[in-house]
């Protein structure tokens, strides 16, 4: 592999800087200029979105492999590199991040409390997310990973809702407990590789002894698994989602949880293929339990956000199951599912956010018949629910199909259970939709106006993305495949 070092416009750094710069600019705006803060946020997130779209368009699928490489030595003594690149796996993730940030900013347009700080923390968080997705150096991946985690605490504890301080503290401590295993694992691999480089691909070429791989993979899997919502480490996730404000829930469930799955794929599976083979059984088992468990617990919830939280656990189980199959279709499906689930959950939370803002409740029994008072706002939630179930024409349909086909082939019993779990989740989604939006009309909400156009725009964008990739899945699958096929053949 030859690296074209800095021979082109550093577009990846530019994407990263769109958030860092946004953060700095926001910090210098006087605290009482709320409107300006929002406009600046929208501008910088828009710049990120445009750059990501351009990147997606410019990526050469035929060539595949790492493109737009930027690589310079950062710390000589340890072999740390500033190494950014995209391939078929992180490209969809970058696109997802930019879409969710852009729509997240739009969703929070009506925020009034400590606006400046909110957007500053949000941009810091997203800078971390971009950084993890585009870095190919273990040191930087960890740095950005932690940068993306700690703004969650103030974001939830200051602007959150139900039991915000408890939820924020639980989430922060859980996620940082995950890094208790990740950081030693990263340095352990570095030390085993002779202590000369943190470059993922150089380490991959060195190859590690199977025993080293088994230890390191388990640590990376469990560490990132916490963030990916792997059962039984998922308990922070519904509580955190419920406590967080809308845009943070969107970014968190939509993008941050993907960081966990991405970490397992990029670090664990790339560096420790033997470890993956050794632990794949466990991964498949935990993933299946997650799918079934999430669906059943979701069935019993009465809080709309809890419902989405548990459905996330279930859907992230599908990602884990896909990864554990170690087949082209399975990993393809898993990466696609990461993307599809990200957009879908963002839509879910965005839709619930509007309903909650207007009715000040998200308890299902208190709502009811909403589709008659606010048909458009309801439609967004219902579309998201269909996407969650995996109805054809939705992006997640293809993702789930790919995962289940290969899961049933690789692990017949677990695969079957997982498919059954999906049926249960369809049941609970339809139940929620029926109780919240149809049925008896609650007169209490009759006066609420339907969502105006400018507030609906983030949801329209998200629905558009879901449908677009549902109708033209090849556009994203070709990209993912260009990375997954060489990856699987190297296993």
């Amino acid at each position, binding site marked *: 592999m030859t690296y074209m070092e800095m021979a082109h416009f550093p577009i990846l750094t530019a994407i990263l800087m769109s958030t860092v710069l946004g953060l700095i600019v926001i910090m210098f705006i006087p605290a009482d200029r709320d409107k300006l803060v929002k406009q600046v946020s929208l501008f910088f997130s828009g710049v990120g979105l445009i750059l990501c779209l351009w990147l997606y368009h410019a990526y050469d699928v035929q060539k595949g492999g790492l493109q737009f490489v930027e690589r310079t030595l950062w710390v000589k*003594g340890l072999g740390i590199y500033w190494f950014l690149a995209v391939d078929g796996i992180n490209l969809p993730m970058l696109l997802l991040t930019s879409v969710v940030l852009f729509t997240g900013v739009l969703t929070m347009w009506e925020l009034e409390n400590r606006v400046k700080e909110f957007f500053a923390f949000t941009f810091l968080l997203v800078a971390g997310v971009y950084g993890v997705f585009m870095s190919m150096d273990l040191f930087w991946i960890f740095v*950005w990973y932690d940068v993306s985690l700690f703004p969650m605490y103030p974001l939830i504890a200051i602007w959150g809702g139900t039991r915000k*301080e408890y939820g924020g*503290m639980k989430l922060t*401590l859980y996620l940082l*407990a995950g890094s*208790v*295993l990740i950081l030693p694992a990263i*340095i*352990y691999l570095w030390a085993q590789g002779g202590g000369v480089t943190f470059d993922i691909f150089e380490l991959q070429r060195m190859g590690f002894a199977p025993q080293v791989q088994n230890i390191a993979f388990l640590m990376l899997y469990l560490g990132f698994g916490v963030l990916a919502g792997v059962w039984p480490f998922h308990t922070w996730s519904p509580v955190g989602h419920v406590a967080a404000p809308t845009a943070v829930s969107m970014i968190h469930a939509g993008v941050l949880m993907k960081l966990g799955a991405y970490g397992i794929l990029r670090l664990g599976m790339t560096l420790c293929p033997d470890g993956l083979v050794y632990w794949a059984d466990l991964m498949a088992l935990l993933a299946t339990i997650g799918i079934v468990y999430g669906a059943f617990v979701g069935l019993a919830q009465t809080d709309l956000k809890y419902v989405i939280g548990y459905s996330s656990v279930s859907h992230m189980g599908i990602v884990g199951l896909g990864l554990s199959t170690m087949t082209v279709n399975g990993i393809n499906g898993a990466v696609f599912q990461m993307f599809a689930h990200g957009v879908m959950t963002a839509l879910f939370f965005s839709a619930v956010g509007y309903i909650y803002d207007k009715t000040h409740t998200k308890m299902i029994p208190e709502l009811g018949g909403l589709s008659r008072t606010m048909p458009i706002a309801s439609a967004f939630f219902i579309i998201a629910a269909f996407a969650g179930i995996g109805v054809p024409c939705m992006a997640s349909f293809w993702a789930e199909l790919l995962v289940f086909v290969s899961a049933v082939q690789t692990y017949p019993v677990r695969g079957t259970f997982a498919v059954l779990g999906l049926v249960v989740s369809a049941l609970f989604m339809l139940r929620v939709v029926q109780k919240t939006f149809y049925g008896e009309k609650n007169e209490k909400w009759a006066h609420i106006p339907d969502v105006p156009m400018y507030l609906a725009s983030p949801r329209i964008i998200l629905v558009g993305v879901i449908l677009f990739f549902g109708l033209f899945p090849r556009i994203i699958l070709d990209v993912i495949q260009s990375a997954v096929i060489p990856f699987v053949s190297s296993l």
Partner: protein
Amino acid sequence: MMKWVLFIPELYYVLMAAIFFALSVQRKVESKRLYSIAVVLSGVGVLVAVLCARLEGMVFFDAYRVDLFSQVFKLLLAIGTFWVVLTCSELESIDPRQHAEFFMFMFICTLGMMMLVSSVELLTIYVSVELSSYCLYLLVAMRRKADMFAETAIKYFMIGAAASGFMVFGISYLFGVAQTTYVADLIKVLPGMLDQPAAIVGLVLALSGFFFKQALFPFHIWAPDVYQGASNQVTTYIATASKMAAAALVIRFVGFSGGESALFIKLLVVLSVLSMTFGNLVALIQKDIKRLLAYSSIAHAGYMMIGILSMSQRGYASAIYYAIAYLIMNFACFMVILKIADDGHNLQIKELAGLHKRSPLMAMTLMLGLFGLAGIPPTVGFTGKFLVFAAALEKGYLTLVIIGMINATISLYYYLIVIKAAYLLEPVRPYPPVMVDRWTQSLAIFLVLAMVYVGVFPDQFVALTEAAARSLLV
């Protein structure tokens, strides 16, 4: 005669102490003037330390060694002293008649610690330790309301004296075994002798005196009480500058043993684990922020020990880097405390409520400092922990590193509680606004930038610490 050039930083601090001695005899100069004189003089002290950073050589019959390692630490000491002096604009908790003595003892203490980091002979080390310790005993006792805090000063003195006793006793054993007090000769003979109980006992006893300075478990008992009982400025000095000297001493002394003895390393591992775990667990329940930081300093002594016990050049380098990081982060936290409690009382965590409105800059400095102490990137504290852990994992201490990371997560809880107070809690009663003068403002901005810059661009600093560690091993 040229050899005296090597001694310039120390001589400069002797001069400073002499000036303040003269001023204290006069008793005519106002506090404000004393403060400005002290600021200027200690500022020049930093400059002197920078100019002398590249000196190398031996003086005083080879008992005193000037190398990059010692000069880096002298620079850190000078910076630490300068910063502490900068925060002394309102010395409310010290009797105005004693301000001149206050500065004099602080400079003598710095002088003692500067000598400490250069000493390579056991008795010279002992004399330097005592010189700095006696000044600290006096500084702690200077706080007003002596009846309330007298216990602290006496306790500190008693425990300190006992620790000194241990140290001399250990040194005498080492001399008995090795027939020399020169460290350079000790390095040659000691590794071969570590199977002898007398050598281990001597080394451990001598080290326990140094661990006392560093507040490593189980030699930490003085720290919480002294942190709480001393005036805020003195606590800041003990927590920042004096910690640098202790770290330098432990690094140099542990380096002597050469890492040949598995028993010795095991002992250090146990101390490190106990120190981290104990410090962090007790810190969880603290209400007084100085006490909280005292327990956190015990934990940090444990983290630093992980790097030192790796016994490799990278290990020592990482410990030096950690010391730099600790100086910046800890000072940032203390500076905020000093400015909020400007009347000199002991600050409770709940008094931080609403700080983000009272002074956004102070709140941000505090947050970054605490995140640094918790080891969250992109601050210097994270990079320090990363380097320390990297050195340990190169030697294969995987379990130790995982314990260290678990501790870092535990510590995050109590740091978050402080941050929560500053950013979330609404004050129960109106607290006076925080007065932040221009000096403090620029210092705070400098600290914030330094915490991020040293953390994100560690390349030159890693190179510097590696060079310092190399000079240590020559």
